[in-house]
């Protein structure tokens, strides 16, 4: 990485920057989204854009892709002013963004997705054969191994991303913005994405890479720009910026990232959760024990069965065979309400899909699991609701206008805290956290994980299911899932290489 950065720097580069934003400001009502922001992307240098939620990254991306114009300031491509605001084709020839949310239309074929609204043909009549041929050519040019004739819904997340990148390149753009491209990928897929990015860089494509995972920035980028509170903070070669300094730039304060996974004494308390021979299509013959106050982690690739096991424990799924007991009582499978009554709280896999009702208030979302405890006969008294909500907002330091604000007005990190509040409201004996910090900024991440240390003191057991190593650091031990089975166990004090190796199924 350092080598390629040095090589890029050594090249004589009189060429103007590929993309440049100068003095860009943008306000939405009373909210300043960007203030005097700047960004300079040099051809051939993968550029990372990092910042906490609300730092102004998305606004900058929208300005760079022409979705809306800045209030002041200027965007330039190759030294020339950006196309006029309405000139979509002009913009598309300069820049493209692959968003976290796919813009592929699932019911259309890959070929049609590539040529949507510009299908080749004569006098407006679409030449399907020609379209498929041209699509195949386009895909092979960029080495994307996907059949153009299949419906896009049959592609996995990664192939959809590749198709989107190929589509962007076919418009002539050589500057591609990747907005959290790794969020939905497993380890192997992320590696494939990075390999592809490096190959495309060799062919003259430059990436602006947005990610919450700082490790990835170090792996794949040469330069990094940091935003904070709607402002540009720093632009540095990645090699010159140690991890702690990068986090400091993002948060504005020194961060405690050096927290080591030191050796812990084995928890000797009584057994809280005992799982025996649990099987489902996704996992096979799982047996494990969790003690009172113990924190265990479940790691594994996206199809390893770890999430399915967690969803079984919390009552979202029913296993085919096997049993589980919580404090000696059998766990009610397939019934979330009973599971909660038995003492299980959980943060579901995806806060948008399962965690929040966007139109409802912060208070109501945070107390949704305990709506039967907020008044007599199921009546919810506003006073009780407000006090329960205020407690959650205070306890988790949720940044909100108040309990009545609709939850969709909060930033990602604060939304996730509301989901956490909802899980904690039931005062669980077992807390199951599935991807608890997905799409959350560094500071919120720390706050969310700090809760784990806090509640274990009270004897609550915690199971953390995550793809991120940082999430697993508070664990006493980490169980690794591979193809539906537990294949390894790492006690606290594990190092990243060992754990990753067993997640990938590579014996070390």
């Amino acid at each position, binding site marked *: 990485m350092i080598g390629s950065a040095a090589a890029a720097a050594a090249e004589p580069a009189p060429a103007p920057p590929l993309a440049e934003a100068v003095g860009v400001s943008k306000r939405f*009502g*009373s*909210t*300043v*989204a960007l203030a*005097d922001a700047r960004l300079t992307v040099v051809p051939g240098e993968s550029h990372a854009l990092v910042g906490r939620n*609300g730092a102004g990254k998305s606004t900058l991306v929208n300005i760079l892709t022409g979705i809306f114009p800045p209030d002041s300031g200027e965007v330039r491509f190759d030294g020339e002013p950006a196309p006029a605001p309405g000139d979509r084709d002009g913009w598309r020839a300069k820049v493209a963004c692959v968003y976290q949310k796919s813009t592929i239309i699932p019911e259309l074929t890959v070929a049609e997705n590539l040529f949507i609204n510009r299908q080749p043909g004569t006098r407006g009549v679409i030449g399907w054969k020609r379209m498929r041929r041209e699509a195949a050519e386009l895909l092979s040019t960029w080495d994307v191994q996907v059949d153009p004739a299949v419906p896009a819904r049959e592609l996995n997340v990664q192939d959809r991303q590749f198709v989107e990148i190929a589509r962007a390149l076919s418009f002539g753009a050589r500057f591609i913005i990747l907005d959290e491209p790794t969020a939905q990928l497993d380890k192997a897929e992320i590696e494939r994405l990075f390999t592809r990015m490096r190959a495309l860089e060799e062919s003259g494509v430059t990436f602006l890479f947005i990610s919450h995972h700082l490790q990835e920035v170090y792996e794949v980028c040469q330069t990094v720009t940091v935003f*904070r*509170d*709607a*402002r*540009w*903070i*720093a*632009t*540095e070669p990645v090699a010159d910026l140690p991890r702690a*300094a990068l986090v*400091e*730039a993002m948060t*504005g304060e020194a961060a405690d990232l050096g927290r080591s996974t030191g050796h812990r004494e084995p928890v000797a308390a009584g057994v809280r959760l005992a799982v025996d021979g649990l099987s489902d299509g996704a996992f096979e013959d799982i047996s494990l024990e969790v003690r009172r106050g113990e924190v265990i982690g479940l790691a594994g690739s996206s199809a390893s069965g770890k999430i399915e096991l967690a969803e079984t424990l*919390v009552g*979202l799924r029913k296993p085919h065979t096997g049993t589980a007991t919580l404090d000696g009582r059998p766990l009610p499978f397939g019934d*979330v*309400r009973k*599971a*909660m009554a038995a003492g299980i709280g*959980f943060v*579901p896999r995806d806060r948008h*899909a*399962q*965690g*929040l*009702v*966007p*139109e*409802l208030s912060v208070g*109501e979302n945070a107390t*949704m*699991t305990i*709506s*039967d405890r*907020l*008044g007599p006969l*199921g*009546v*919810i*008294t*506003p006073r009780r609701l407000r006090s329960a909500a205020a407690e959650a907002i205070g306890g988790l330091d949720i*940044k*909100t*206008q*108040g309990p*009545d*604000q*609709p939850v969709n007005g909060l*930033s990602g990190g604060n939304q996730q805290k509301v989901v956490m509040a*909802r899980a904690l409201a039931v005062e669980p004996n077992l807390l199951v956290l599935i991807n608890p910090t997905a799409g959350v900024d560094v500071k919120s991440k720390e706050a969310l994980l700090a809760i784990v240390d806090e509640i274990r003191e009270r004897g609550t057991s915690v199971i953390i299911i995550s793809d991120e190593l940082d999430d697993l650091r508070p664990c006493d031990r980490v169980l690794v899932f591979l193809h539906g089975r537990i294949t390894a166990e790492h006690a606290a004090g594990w190092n990243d290489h060992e754990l990753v190796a067993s997640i990938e199924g590579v014996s070390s």
Partner: protein
Amino acid sequence: MTQTVAEPRGGGGEAKAAGGAAGAGAALRRMREFTLVPALIALVVLGAVVNDSFLTERNIISILGASAALALVVLAESLILITGKIDLSLESTVGIAPGLGALLVIPAASAGFGTEWPAFLGILAIFVVGGLIGAFNGFLSVKLRLNAFIVSLAMLIVLRGLLTGATEGKTLFDMPEPFFSIATTTFLKLPLSVWLAAVCFGVAGFVLRYHRLGRALYAIGGNPEAARAAGIRVERVTWVVYVVAGVLAAAAGLCLTGYVGAINANQGQNMIFTVMAAAVIGGISMNGGKGTMTGAITGVLLLGVVDNLLTLAQVASFWKQAIYGAIILFALVISRVTSGQAQE
């Protein structure tokens, strides 16, 4: 951090914006419930100006009496819409529930089944039929996971056909007095049907705002997966809503029977369009999870006043429908503009 150039100002825009908008945001949300009130007042003023008899006690009672059945069906539909479903067949329930009740009671000579049940059993049957139809609709859409729109459209046709078949297209009017008394008996000058609708709206409004069952409807309509993960029994609650809606539609049918004084095989036909219009004008979202009873009732009253004004203005009956439709269209546009939100 030597490369830190820009200093953040006062914790960033996010926090600042939050402080100022806190009170205003909540107030604005509460205001939205009443967006139709100005329009309603304007209409009432207009009515008073153009027609002397509009603001008379008699006319107001007549508006309320005529709106009671519509109000109950709008209430039923609103509950279903908030839960994120739709039920078009409610308009057929309005016909078939009292129809079957009547057929069980009236003698065979008057086209009845010949069972000649006592009146109170017949009236009980009306509600049971409504509940059963709701349960069946719930079964189709919740258990079999059929598309609620199309399946309730099919049910609309089936139920209408059943009523036409059972009555052989005839109008039933030989029912005993209790079948009409809900509209003919008055309490404090208002017909019982108006009181029934008012009580139903009051209870529904309270439950939707202050009871966990009511709040569960919003959660389910807003995000069923999140509701399920929060321990709400999504299927069961949705099913209950269907049954309640069926019973309310049956009650509306009884009110309409009393108001008209007979049961036509067409009773309730085409009513669903007005129902949907009143609900959407009143701010109930077609996508679920949004809407209040205050909004729904203002929607009903708005359409009731319009209908009354058209009658008072002696608009030729051939043209009444077109004008009524145009006013609904206009009201939808107005409510879109005043609420500032897309109607989904």
